[in-house]
């Protein structure tokens, strides 16, 4: 179980101003500003849960992950993971966790992947049998058998990411932190990675914390979402809750015969002209079918389509709502 209570963290940042005069001044005196990376962050994640941790760049996502993985010490607050404080019992704690950074590699660049795996086995003191078991499981699930003998530098990004994930799971951790695991991957690799994450969460009951900017990852994987902005947890709920909050807006695109679309107080015409128009409706005020029937009374409809907000748009409007 992961439990964070009132975690706070402030960073001191040196100011760098543009311009020649400022640069000369900086030679002698430096100015600092303080950034509240995390303010009062509290949440609980139960064993076996899969949580999506989202927020814009610089919101505090990676600081939280660093604190949870024991790399960073917070200024105040509590963080208990499986009964331990990560930054106090670092060595014991990290045995239980696996971390994948989508943008960094933990594989040795110039040697075959399997050699990296064996070194990791020795670092984590994984027993021969356990290693064999998890390696064969991972090889099968991630389809690694063809690439284990290849040096990491020769792998494609998708292949490498699959190996990275396997490397983080060789010691069979209870908690897996994934930081943008699908960044830069092609469509089929993305799907493969997602499928795999889903299955280890289901089969091994591994707790998964996923930070990503790819909302399709979130949609495909997690039920629960934590939204962080400006260092605060803004929202903790299910994906559906989040969608419902914002997906009441829909757009009707109408091809019709006639002069123009009828005006109505319950919807808003976004565009109109030459027999094609777009109408924005709020389903809490008027349902799509009512709006369609209202329009069809006035003009002859040739074709119509209804589009809702995509999850990306939902998130953008969420960011806007919280002004982050």
């Amino acid at each position, binding site marked *: 179980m992961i439990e964070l209570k009132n975690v706070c963290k402030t960073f001191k940042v040196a100011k760098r101003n543009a311009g020649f005069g400022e640069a000369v001044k900086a030679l002698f005196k430096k100015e600092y500003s303080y950034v509240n990376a995390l303010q009062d962050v509290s949440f609980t994640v139960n064993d076996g849960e899969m949580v999506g941790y989202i927020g814009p760049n610089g919101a505090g996502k990676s600081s939280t992950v660093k604190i949870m993985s024991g790399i960073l010490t917070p200024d105040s607050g509590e963080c208990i993971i499986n009964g331990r404080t990560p930054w106090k019992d670092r*060595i014991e704690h990290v045995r239980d966790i696996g971390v994948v950074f989508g943008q960094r590699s933990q594989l040795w*660049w110039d040697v075959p992947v399997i050699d990296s795996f064996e*070194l990791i086995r*020795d670092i*984590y003191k994984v027993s021969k049998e356990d290693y064999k078991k998890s390696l064969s499981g991972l090889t099968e699930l991630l389809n690694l058998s063809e690439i284990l003998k290849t040096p990491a530098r020769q792998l494609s990004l998708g292949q490498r990411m699959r190996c990275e994930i396997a490397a983080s799971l060789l010691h069979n951790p209870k908690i897996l932190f994934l930081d943008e695991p699908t960044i830069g991957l092609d469509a089929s690799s993305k799907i493969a990675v997602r499928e795999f994450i889903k299955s280890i969460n289901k089969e091994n009951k591994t707790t998964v914390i996923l930070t990503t900017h790819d909302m399709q990852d979130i949609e495909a994987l997690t039920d629960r979402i934590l939204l962080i902005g400006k260092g605060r947890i803004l929202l903790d709920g299910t994906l559906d809750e989040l969608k419902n909050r914002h997906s009441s807006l829909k757009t009707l695109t109408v091809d019709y015969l006639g002069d123009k679309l009828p005006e109505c107080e319950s919807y808003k015409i976004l565009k109109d002209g030459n027999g094609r128009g777009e109408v924005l409706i709020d389903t809490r005020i008027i349902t799509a079918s009512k709006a369609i029937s209202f329009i069809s009374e006035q003009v002859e409809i040739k074709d119509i389509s209804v589009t809702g907000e995509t999850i990306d748009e939902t998130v953008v409007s969420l960011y806007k709502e919280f002004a982050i």
Partner: protein
Amino acid sequence: MSLYFKYVGMLLKSQMQYKASFFMTAVGQFLISFTTFLSMVFMFSRFNAVRGFTFSEVLICFSVVLMAFSLTECFFRGFDVFPRLIKSGELDRILLRPRNEMFQVLASDMDFSRIGRLLQAVVMLIYAFITCDINWTGLKIITVSLMILGGVGVFTGLFILYAAFSFFTIEGLEFMNIFTDGSREFGKYPVSVYGEGMLKFYTFVVPIALFQYYPFLYLIGKSENVWYALLPLLGFAFIVPCYAFFRFGLRKYKSTGS
């Protein structure tokens, strides 16, 4: 320990992927210290002693320092490239692994191309021993090995110090070169050559005189003080404060993330 050799194996395997580059770099390394040697020859060709030390005697100093430095650079390179570990995030990865941080830094990088320099140091040392009149005793043989080992100790301390400073400033690190590269460069002469003040500096602040000067005096018979022979052991004590400072820096890193 067996894990350490695993790391060594991996690093060897990695570096052997680029054999041509490895070979060229080794030759280049050799040339760098060889030109330093040539400069020394040129200086002595105009005069055959400096502050009472002959060329062969100075050569003992030079080769001990060079040997200790290249051994340190080869096996403790992880501290030398430590700023890179911070920048690339490799340090975070180290912190994510259930092993001692120092051990992992130590094992993270080694540069075997330093063998070029090591080879030269060995040749010079042999030459110096042949041309120098040393009254060999058992203790003197031990003294030589202590000098080399003590040198590795002091340089390792300096490298750890360098790494520790990189927790506080990446830009300002260049000044540490005075102590690391500077000690190698200026340690080629017995440090008393630079004057009384520098001898004190190199005894009490950056203690390279402990393995390079005092035991050297005993070795060539300029001093009968047997304790001088054991001073290199004190060089290892130098690692302790450096290590403590590194731990302090690491704590700061964990609290600021940079």
